[in-house]
């Protein structure tokens, strides 16, 4: 412990050197802005800064990338809360709650909660990385695709079914999303599925087009046709300045701690990442909550759980990279490229051979999450100024931004068409009470579930019993089954009560 504290102190001294600290701030700023722009993901921005790191030393290079990483996972929440446009798929649960809160006139509160819980999650996960990285990495390595599949199923089940007014409608939406996820060229055999000769469908339906369309375009249409299905904001848009609700976090300590823990745990599983962790954390919170029916209507606990888990996953993902040399996510894979470019091989020996560099990076992560409170506040303030723009102008430019966000994905107008199509679909889904979140979950997590399932089957000679003979997988699947069946059982019990009473 003393040795770790000593190394961490050295790391802090190095990290606050002017160039290193500047890299953290610049990285955070790039990450927050890029994360907030739809279509430009956090991963895109890390890739874009990679060439700029060639001429830097390894420490400033990695601090720049860590800044982009930490800022990028948070940035998408700002536009999600303000405009219902999640910057990244990982920000979707935050958008579900944050935008509703904003519509109810609690924009400042929602933005403040997002900033504070992001920073808390990131900070704790960085400390976890500093103190527990090697033993956690060994534990996480015992997870295989079997457990990953079960984690994804758990995420799908918990968010899709709980709190929905109609389970059948939720499942229709979920399976529709999962089906959309199967369109395009299949990864294992290279076979085209459901493309029907349409060229752009061969590369699949990018889930970002679905997200932008369903959420943003659907919302704009809903507002301009006259009778929005959302409640109107109570406070003037001009008052959308964020505030930092330090004390307000105390009643939400449960979701905050659970979200962070889920973020670290899921982020620490190689291949799972921030998106899975945000959905799992949100779903878990929904199950634990005494008011699950309020999720999706502007629930602060849901926002805090999701947001803390997204940044909580950053430390978890770094554990694999630094201790085992295995990137835990696409973002850390790019960072691994930066290590290798500088002639350093991440892995078990890194902590002993390059102690100063490793602990500078860890200290940099801690600093990045502290600095993010200030920068996140400034960024949210800047974006919130857009809320002063009159609604006619704002709604019009939201459509234009959706165009740009969809086009930026592959420089292809076909994606823009898809976005607009899903926008119209989103409008009708709102109007006819077909829940949107399960569809989004299906298209994001469905392909992951397929990949993990098929890989597990190849590894275990098509023996499906492997999902119930491995304890972690069996427990997660059992909980998922209970979650799906519970509303049915509850309804049957409610029906049998009056019958038995008479």
């Amino acid at each position, binding site marked *: 412990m003393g040795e770790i504290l000593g190394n961490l102190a050295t790391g802090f001294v190095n990290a606050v050197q002017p160039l290193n600290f500047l890299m953290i701030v610049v990285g955070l700023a790039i990450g927050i802005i890029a994360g907030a722009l739809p279509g430009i993901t956090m991963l895109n921005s890390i890739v874009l800064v990679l060439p700029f790191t060639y001429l830097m030393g390894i420490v400033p290079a990695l601090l720049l990338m860590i800044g982009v990483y930490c800022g990028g996972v948070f940035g998408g929440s700002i536009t999600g809360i303000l405009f219902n446009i999640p910057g990244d798929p990982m920000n979707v649960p935050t958008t579900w709650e944050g935008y509703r809160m904003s519509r109810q006139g609690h924009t400042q509160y929602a933005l403040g909660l997002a900033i504070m819980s992001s920073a808390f999650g990131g900070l704790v996960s960085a400390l976890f990385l500093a103190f527990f990285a090697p033993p956690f990495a060994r534990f996480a390595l015992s997870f295989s695709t079997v457990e990953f599949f079960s984690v994804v199923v758990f995420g799908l089940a918990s968010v899709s079914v709980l709190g929905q007014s109609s389970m059948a409608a939720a499942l*229709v939406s979920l399976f529709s999303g999962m089906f959309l996820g199967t369109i395009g060229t299949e990864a294992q055999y290279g076979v085209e599925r459901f493309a029907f000769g349409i060229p752009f469908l061969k590369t699949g339906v990018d889930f970002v087009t679905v997200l932008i369309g369903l959420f943003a375009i659907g919302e704009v249409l809903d507002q301009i046709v006259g009778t929005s299905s959302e409640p109107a904001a109570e406070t003037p848009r001009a008052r959308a300045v964020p505030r930092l609700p330090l004390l307000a976090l105390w009643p939400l300590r449960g979701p905050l701690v659970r979200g962070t823990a889920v973020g670290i745990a899921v982020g620490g599983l190689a291949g799972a990442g921030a998106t899975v962790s945000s959905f799992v954390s949100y779903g878990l919170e929904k199950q634990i909550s005494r008011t699950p029916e309020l999720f999706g209507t502007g629930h602060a606990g849901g926002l805090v759980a999701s947001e803390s888990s997204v940044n909580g996953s950053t430390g978890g993902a770094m554990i694999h990279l630094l201790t085992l040399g295995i990137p835990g996510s696409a973002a850390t894979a790019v960072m691994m490229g930066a290590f290798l470019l500088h002639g350093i091989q991440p892995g078990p020996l890194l902590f002993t051979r390059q102690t100063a560099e490793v602990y500078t990076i860890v200290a940099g992560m801690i600093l990045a999450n502290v600095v993010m409170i200030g920068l996140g506040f400034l960024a949210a303030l800047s974006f919130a100024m857009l809320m002063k723009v009159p609604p*006619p102008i704002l709604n019009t430019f939201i459509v234009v931004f959706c165009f740009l966000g969809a086009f930026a994905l592959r*420089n292809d107008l076909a994606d823009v068409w898809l976005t607009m199509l899903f926008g119209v679909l989103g409008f009708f889904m709102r109007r006819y009470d077909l829940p949107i979140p399960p569809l989004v979950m299906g298209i994001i997590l469905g392909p992951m579930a397929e990949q993990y399932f098929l890989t597990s089957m190849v590894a275990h000679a098509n023996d499906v019993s492997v999902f119930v003979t491995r304890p972690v997988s069996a427990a997660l699947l059992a909980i998922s089954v209970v979650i799906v069946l519970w509303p049915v059982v509850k309804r049957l019990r409610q029906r049998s009560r009056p019958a038995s009473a008479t």
Partner: protein
Amino acid sequence: MPALARVVAPLAGVIVAVALFAATRGLDDVARGEQLGPGFWPRLVLIGLGLASAAKLVENLRRAAPNDHAVARAGAAGLGGVRRGTLLLAIATIVLYVALTPWLGFPLVTVGFVAAFMMLLAGARSPVAIGAAAVLGTVGLLYVFVKLVYLPLPKGDGAFETMTLALYRGLGIF
């Protein structure tokens, strides 16, 4: 939701699921040995979609049976209260925006779209505000996405491409 839609929509879900299930035939021809083919997972998903749609159909029929008016009050908002003409105009404007972009180029179509959308649909009345928002907004977006993000936005065809390039040069972003 109208009574007919309550039956037709989930029934369509069942039919689409069955039709797509049939379309998975042949997908597994490439499967090696005993391995699961690329058609396995979609079939599983489509069975789920078909069953869920059937369950929704049963649910709608059972809910509709006792008291149609009560269901209508408790159910979805549907298109009640929606200005259908406005909705169609909004969709048509968005479709035109995307459809015209390859020919006229992003800058010109965006100026037109912003002006039309604000005026016809978003309720803006001041010509100065509309003009300023359309022109300044488009120029701002061009600076960010062409100059800073290097996004190759559609420049249009023929004379419109020349016009877009001249605009880019004039703005110093090309």
